[in-house]
């Protein structure tokens, strides 16, 4: 649906996007992750024809010029920065943007009603945008992108700066759109979101894609081992404990209260070994490596901006 090949964009001496290539398949939700300044927004803006690439090619549904009206009609973008008329009401904003997409009359009113309901904004339809809370403004931002029922959705940090309830609402919304078979390109700084929503994920930094794969594969190949923390029923000698854990690494044993901490690829096997050695477990926690681990592993832990 979206294919990008060798895309490059510089602002003066800053290279924002550098030889970027990826593909978003039809009906897929694709996550573009990366630290601040990685080039995610720049990429999205090139995809909708707001910015002209220095080199490289963009193809959307087979058309290589994203500024063509037929491409624009199937694309919807919720930009990272709020882009709403503060001094117009929620409904006026929606009606205006809907008209720009050639909608009018009953169809327009029907679509406005639908997206208002979807965004839980019906009650505030007559309020000026500047009087809305941040969460409502974000929901309206998404609603504006959905008005013309685009096949391809570009969501640039759709949940930035809002409370957990509003985020939950938006995530549900995106899952719903996903089920409807939309092609979605999503950027976010919240790894749980990407984990929850994306079929495939690309992690980019300094304009380049570092890795691109499904969530499982990424974790498998980059996140390292599972972290297990256990508390034993009775104190036991350190040697016994450590000896029994053949499959674990980095074990750490504290005799005072019988606490145990180790990393392993096979947590179940480790538990079995502990039991076999006659060590009863009172409490256990198993931390599977997350996307966040992968992200930090790949992009480093130093500040970017």
């Amino acid at each position, binding site marked *: 649906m979206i294919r990008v090949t060798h895309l490059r964009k510089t602002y003066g001496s800053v290279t924002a996007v550098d030889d970027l290539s990826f593909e978003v398949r039809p009906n897929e939700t694709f996550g573009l992750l990366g630290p601040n300044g990685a080039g995610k927004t720049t990429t999205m803006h090139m995809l*909708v*024809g*707001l*910015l*002209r690439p220095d080199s490289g090619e963009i193809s959307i549904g087979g058309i290589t010029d994203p500024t063509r*009206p*037929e491409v*624009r*009609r199937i*694309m919807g*973008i919720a*930009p990272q*920065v*709020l*882009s*709403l*008329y*503060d*001094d*117009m009401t929620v409904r*006026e904003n929606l009606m*205006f*943007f809907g*008209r*720009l*997409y*050639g909608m009018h009359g009953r169809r327009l009113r029907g679509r406005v009603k639908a997206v208002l309901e979807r965004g839980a904004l019906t009650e505030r339809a007559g309020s000026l945008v500047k009087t809305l809370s941040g969460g409502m403004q974000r929901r309206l931002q998404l609603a*504006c992108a959905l008005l013309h029922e685009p096949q391809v959705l570009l969501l640039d940090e759709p949940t930035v700066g809002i409370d957990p309830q509003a985020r939950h609402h938006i995530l549900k919304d995106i899952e719903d759109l996903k089920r409807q078979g939309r092609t979605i390109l999503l950027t976010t700084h919240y790894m749980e979101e990407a984990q929850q929503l994306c079929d495939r994920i690309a992690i980019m930094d300094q304009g380049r894609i570092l890795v691109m794969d499904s969530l499982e594969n990424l974790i498998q190949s980059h996140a390292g081992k599972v972290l297990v923390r256990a508390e034993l029923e009775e104190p036991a000698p350190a040697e016994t404990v450590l000896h029994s854990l053949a499959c674990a690494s980095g074990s750490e044993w504290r005799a005072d209260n019988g606490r145990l901490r180790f990393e392993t690829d096979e947590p179940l096997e480790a538990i079995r070994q502990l039991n076999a050695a006659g060590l009863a477990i009172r409490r256990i926690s198993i931390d599977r490596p997350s996307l966040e681990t992968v992200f930090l592993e790949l992009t480093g832990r130093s500040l970017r901006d």
Partner: protein
Amino acid sequence: MRTLFYIAGKDLLLHWRDRLGFFWWMLGFPLLIAVLIGLIFSGVLEDPTQPLRVALVDEAGTPESQLFAQILQESGSVATRPMSAGEARDAVRTGGALGLVILKKEFRITPAVFSNQRMPVAIAMDPRHQAESHYLKAALNQAAIEMLRRQWFDPAQRSRFIDALLADTGRQGEMSALERKAIEGTLGVLGSFFDAPASGGKRSPLDALSNVEVVPVDAQRIQPHSAFEICFPIGIMWGLIALAAEFAQAIVKERDAGTLLRLRVAPIARWQILAGSGLACFAAAVGVTLMLLIFGHFAFGVRLQNPVGLGLAIPAIGLCFVGLTMLLSVLGNTESSVGGAAWATLLIMSMVGGGMVPQIFLPSWMDLAGNLSPVKWSIRALEGGIWRDFTVGEMAVPCGILLGMGLVCGLVGVAIHQRRASC
């Protein structure tokens, strides 16, 4: 085409919502300017048939000075009011009189006042009425001539007239009684020739020489009926200046608020975005002009007697200000920098174009510089429709210039916009 109206409608709605910008800067403030300047200049542009109001201080208090004061008053050119020096100064200071005339202690009118002596008269003017001082001097000279004429023509005074003449030239003792009689006789004959009404009711030859007939030049039509007819076009300029600044800022705000981004990803052409804003600006400019004119008409008697002229002027002015707005909107990168730059530019245009002080009061070089200002041509066009009674051909000049200026500004502004957007 519909898209243009949607965008224009949205722009107008946003300006309508901005109560301060729309109702105060585009309507209230211009109205206030028009009315205030109108009231101020109602005083200056006093009916020219009214004599100049001056205070008269007679320091001499002689029969001669009293006669002069009487002649001055009778002339009809000035309306004098006798006062003490202190009172006269107060009267000028407080606007009760436009100037004062002092007949000095040694007051005496002889023929020498026109050659080697100054007139024993002093004047002072209200600083705002300096221009009228020349008029006052002329009136004083006229009174002095009239006084000499009376001395010459009146046989009872003729002897004093000759004495004064001789005294002025320092030749008192040089004339014999006989010579003196001869001169008196000659003057008498000349006097009766000039002074005696000719037969058949005709006026004397001197009258015929001094009284040039003044005929009105279509006075009913080519003069403003009131200061408001001059000041409402000025008020309208203030409204349009505010409008251009507000709309230029709105164009920048559209970009800063991110909404331009949404417009640019919509399936519409890029030119439609600016054209829609231009359309809104045009509609608002025409609306503001009409509202102010109609208010001026009903509340202050501003005539709208040349509807054809106004019908040409108002759209031309609107288009010119649309172009100007496009150019102003690229003068900065933020809303406030564009606002500042727009106001500064427009204020200068207004100043040289006669938008602050009516053009007739501007120095000539400024009037010349004003030719580059759309404000001057807008005022000219509006006046053509209000009281100058321009024909379509005469209206074509200011309107053509306005359209040309609007086109050039607009093209430059749009070109810069397109260049900035295409990165």
